[in-house]
């Protein structure tokens, strides 16, 4: 019996160690290549340098697409946080027919092939006569971000004990004050987690955005893939390394605020 346990633990440890190495490999490789002083991607690099960071900063089109992506991600996440939270409250607290269907429906874009959604929206918006890339991108990215907010806030609300609000009111809190003092602190982690993942999903989206870009309006992943196809040099790795650094910073802040374990709640 002890032996079976030991074998199980050994097996879990080996597979986990392998998986961690497997998951970290692309990140480590990218960072190393970005500091290499060679045009080809040789590992380990013959010499170190910052030249790819300089080249990255000089590449035309990078900064505008980064700013565009951040802007679209921020606006769509904000809108989704409001509408998604309201919808989550309605489906968890409300007593009306079809709330399970609504819950499934609002989360469903997450499971649909992005490219298909993109094609459908492209044809639809074209028929409506909307040709502005920025507006189209925004409309599409709200669809991308909404399910993340809905799913996480819904899960967190369904664990929330609503009688606490009544308790607070019995103890003399007004209703808005009871909401602010009891419900908001409980929901804050879900807000932060879902907002973070919604933001990252929007920042990373390629298959939907590709249908709504024009030569002047390109989001970051599209611009990066274009760089890769036109002239693949380690300045892409430098950009990637910057994004990795940014994400580590965001995760660090997230850990301080809500704890990593909450972030892993899927």
């Amino acid at each position: 019996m002890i032996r079976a346990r030991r074998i199980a633990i050994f097996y879990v440890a080996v597979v986990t160690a392998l998986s961690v190495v497997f998951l970290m490999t692309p990140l480590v490789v990218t960072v190393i290549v970005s500091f290499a002083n060679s045009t080809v991607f040789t590992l380990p690099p013959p010499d170190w340098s910052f030249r790819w960071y300089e080249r990255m900063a000089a590449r035309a089109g990078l900064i505008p697409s980064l700013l565009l992506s951040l802007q679209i991600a921020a606006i769509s996440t904000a809108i989704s946080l409001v509408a998604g939270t309201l919808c989550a409250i309605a489906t968890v607290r409300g007593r009306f027919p079809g709330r399970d269907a609504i819950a499934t429906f609002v989360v469903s874009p997450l499971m649909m092939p992005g490219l298909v959604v993109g094609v459908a929206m492209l044809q639809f918006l074209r028929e409506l006569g909307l040709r502005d890339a920025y507006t189209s991108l925004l409309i599409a990215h709200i669809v991308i971000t909404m399910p993340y907010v809905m799913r996480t806030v819904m899960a967190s609300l369904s664990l929330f004990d609503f009688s606490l609000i009544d308790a607070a009111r019995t103890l003399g809190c007004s209703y808005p004050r009871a909401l602010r003092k009891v419900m908001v602190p409980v929901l804050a982690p879900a807000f932060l987690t879902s907002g973070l993942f919604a933001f990252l999903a929007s920042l990373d989206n390629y298959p939907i955005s590709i249908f709504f870009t024009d030569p002047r309006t390109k989001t970051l992943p599209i611009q990066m893939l274009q760089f890769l196809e036109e002239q693949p040099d380690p300045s892409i790795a430098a950009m990637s390394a910057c994004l990795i650094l940014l994400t580590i910073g965001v995760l660090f802040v997230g850990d301080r605020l809500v704890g990593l374990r909450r972030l892993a709640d899927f």
Partner: protein
Amino acid sequence: MIAAIRRLDPLAWLAVPATAYLAFAFALPLGLLLIKSVWTADGFTLASYVKFFSDPFSWRVLTNTLKIAFLITLVTLFLGYPVAFALALSRGWLQVMLLVAMILPLSIGAVVKAFSWQIVLRRDGVVNRFLEWIGLIDEPVRFLFTETGLVLGAANIFLPFMVLPIYSVVRLIDPRLSEAAATLGAGPVYGFLRITAILSLPGVVAGIAFVFSLSISMYVIPSLLIGDRYQLLATLTGRSFLFLRNETLGATVAVILLIIAIAVVMVSSYLSNRLRPAR
């Protein structure tokens, strides 16, 4: 009608903005795509589907897509299931490290990761160097632009989507249940199979559904790791619209992909309802 609306829970109104928005911007376009694929100027027709399915190339694309998605799901399940347990059972800094290893890759874009797999899988890349170093191969093996490379890269990118749903179920399993089983004389293997494994199934179903639907719809990863000569349903859709300008073909393939994705969602939600313990 008005009385029915009056009787409705006022909280229902809070669901209106999100639902109405998605109905308009998401469901309506998908519905129109479906309808337009069978409804042309001449009325109802399945011609585009007949044409698609009578072409052996289409069948190859379809079977490639399903095969690759199946393989990716298998690899991630094989690796992810033990990792989910390690994550649930570990404590302290070890758990923090494992969580970072799961979440950090999750938050880095597919373009960035697919690009680094291009570097890893090259002839003189890390994988080939390592295999040569441990003496498994004598000369470099081609990984880039092969199915193996694609499955390896995609499995790497989707692994957290398998681990995290299983983890969130496993960590809620009451450890006293296994102890009770052991007290009652169940061996560890029997106890695991009859209790822990069964209780973890909802997480496994969720993970498989996630990874499978991500795998059939991936676009950036195959275009960087396997190239244009190997087509999948999603890459074929993208190519038909963006390069070939063949919108009829693109719409047909898109609808087929959509139907597979909906089937995955329906099967997985049916299974997870069946598996949910009675309360």
